[in-house]
């Protein structure tokens, strides 16, 4: 019998993700219609087009590069959420771990004049440390990782503001430009920028993030360590019974997740694409968008690469909407609707499976009927 393509889990995930995107855009469109019916379509188109709004090819390439520059940290945050989720942990603290990475890399670069590599290592250490706190609290004190993660997000934000105030420009709340104050810490470009119309912000950050995704895939699918982690996630008690150190696995998972998000912070701020604002009063959305990318990517590292790009594409696209009618946050709105819909993925898969089962049953009945009729005819 021919294998039904719809039965494969990967295909179902893909269908579910596309459904989420389409429904998310549709609901976003309806919300915009309510706010101001005249410009809603243009706004959605602007969000979808992003850099394609420019008609000149070289400007398109340059802004495509900019979107990619921000996709790299988003992908790292998404991988952080994904890795923890595979072990049954919801790492909403990725946002704070990302901030910790930003803090470490900027401070080491500007205050101590470190090069990019040691800066990145420090970012990993900071992110991992924040993750470790969540892990220790979860493993030994049974504290819900979502709540402790949120608390650490805010603690991390205020600590970062405090520390980075020491390396800010004297006349503005922003930190010094890495490019002028600490050029040794800039990530090497390796000539990648030339591909994007000499975009100086395009660096090894982008290939590094993609390599990280592949490494995560291999670790989770092909190693004993990854298998143990996933087993712990599926059933903590069964894993313990089978002789796996479930507490150690929880802590280790969150340390790795924290490290991944921490690298994300370094990958963006060591390109000098942005400066940190020391008076920031809300946790940057990067970590939260990472959650969107993770679930949209069907919880698969490779899927996450594309989902991260999509989420960043519409987030950057938000900058191009008509500001007299809407604000750039409509892309946040759309991505949060998409996350909400991702909650229904299990249901969508269930519905698909039900549909398949029903049609197969019908087919079977028809065959039986036909067989019975054929028999009757012979008599």
């Amino acid at each position, binding site marked *: 019998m021919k294998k039904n393509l719809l039965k494969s889990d990967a295909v179902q995930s893909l269908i579910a993700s596309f459904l989420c995107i389409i429904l998310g855009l549709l609901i976003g469109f309806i919300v915009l219609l309510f706010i101001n019916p005249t410009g809603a379509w243009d706004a959605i188109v602007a969000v979808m087009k992003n850099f394609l709004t420019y008609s000149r090819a070289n400007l398109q390439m340059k802004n495509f590069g900019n979107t990619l520059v921000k996709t790299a940290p988003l992908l790292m945050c998404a991988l952080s959420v994904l890795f923890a989720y595979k072990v049954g942990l919801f790492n909403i603290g990725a946002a704070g771990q990302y901030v910790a990475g930003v803090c470490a890399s900027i401070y080491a670069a500007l205050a101590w004049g470190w090069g990019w590599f040691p800066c990145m290592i420090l970012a990993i250490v900071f992110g991992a440390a924040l993750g470790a706190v969540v892990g220790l609290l979860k493993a030994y004190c049974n504290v819900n990782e979502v709540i402790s993660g949120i*608390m650490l997000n805010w603690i991390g934000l205020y600590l970062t503001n405090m520390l980075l105030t020491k390396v800010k420009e004297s006349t503005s709340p922003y930190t010094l430009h890495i490019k002028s104050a600490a050029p040794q810490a800039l990530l090497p470009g390796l000539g990648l920028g030339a591909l994007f119309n000499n975009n100086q912000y395009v660096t090894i950050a982008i290939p590094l993030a993609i390599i990280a995704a592949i490494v995560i895939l291999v670790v989770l699918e092909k190693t004993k360590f990854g298998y143990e982690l996933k087993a712990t996630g599926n059933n903590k008690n069964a894993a313990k019974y089978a002789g796996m150190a479930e507490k150690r696995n929880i802590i280790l998972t969150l340390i790795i997740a924290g490290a991944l998000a921490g690298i994300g912070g370094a990958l963006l701020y060591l390109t000098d694409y942005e400066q940190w604002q020391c008076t920031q009063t809300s946790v940057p959305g990067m970590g939260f968008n990472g959650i969107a990318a993770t679930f949209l990517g069907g919880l698969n590292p490779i899927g996450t690469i594309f989902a991260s790009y999509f989420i960043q594409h519409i987030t950057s696209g938000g900058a191009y909407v008509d500001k007299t009618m809407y604000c750039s946050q409509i892309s946040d709105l759309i991505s949060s609707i998409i996350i909400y819909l991702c909650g229904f993925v299990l249901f969508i898969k269930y519905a698909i499976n039900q549909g398949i089962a029903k049609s197969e049953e019908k087919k079977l009945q028809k065959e039986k009927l036909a067989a019975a009729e054929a028999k009757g005819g012979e008599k």
Partner: protein
Amino acid sequence: MLLLVQYTLIFASVLLLVALGGCFSEHSGVINLGLEGIMVIGALGGALMMRYLPAGTSGFMIVILTLLAAIVFGVAYSALLAVASINFKADQTIVGTALNMLGTAGATVLVKAINTAANPDDVSSTIQYIEPKKAFIVNIGSFEFNWFMVVAVIMLIFAYVVLYKTKFGLRLMACGEHPQAADSVGIDVHKMRWAGVLISGMLGGLGGICYILAGVSEWKFENGVAGFGFLALAVMIFGQWKPTRIALAALLFGFFRALSNVYFGFDWLVSLNIPGSVYNMMPYIISLIVLALTSQHSRAPKAEGIPYDKGMR
């Protein structure tokens, strides 16, 4: 000193309201991580009501209508959580997180659109309510008494009575402890859970409007509610899901939150020369420590977070 008491009480009221909301939802078996978003939407409802009320409205009507608007918005928004987690058995953590992001993003988009429509140069996400705010406040000497303190106490009594003294409350709690057993004696688990989530939406919405009326007379919706929904969850856990203990926990957390607002009024605190950020961090640090100490022996409802499936025993 009086100022510290005043801020402690008002922030404790916010935390109490929202934590009681979480308490209802969790007792029915649904983890409500979306409280933060519900607060934002409730605050939005109340703020819009205050903005559009005609100038001559009496103080009493302002209070009642604003509270009603916050409740309606909060309940309607919490229905999104109920549909997803009860009827479609969605992952409650994902949906809750989505609601938090959606709350802030949605409120920002809406308020910005309203502001720009009124005045094309205004691209802020701020709503002002200097005049209507006065209706909520009674000055007793230099102490600003806020009607929300009364609302919070009423809701505390309401929660206690409903949960422990009525058939409905006991049935609700049964659905959070052992839904299969509850179902076997004829309780409609889905209906009960819906009720729990909607009540939490009502209390969350009230808490939201209370929070933005606490110290300031305008609110920038881009900022959301700064993790207050999660602080309330910490209060709830520290209070072991029991209304009276939640009230005490709310006072403790409210005190630390109030410190960051008024620390510069105390000479000896100022002389310590601690940066303001440290006071801002205080409530979060305290809650981490408190959670670490109390979560080990937590008496959380046993079936919380697990979608109810009739076929499972």
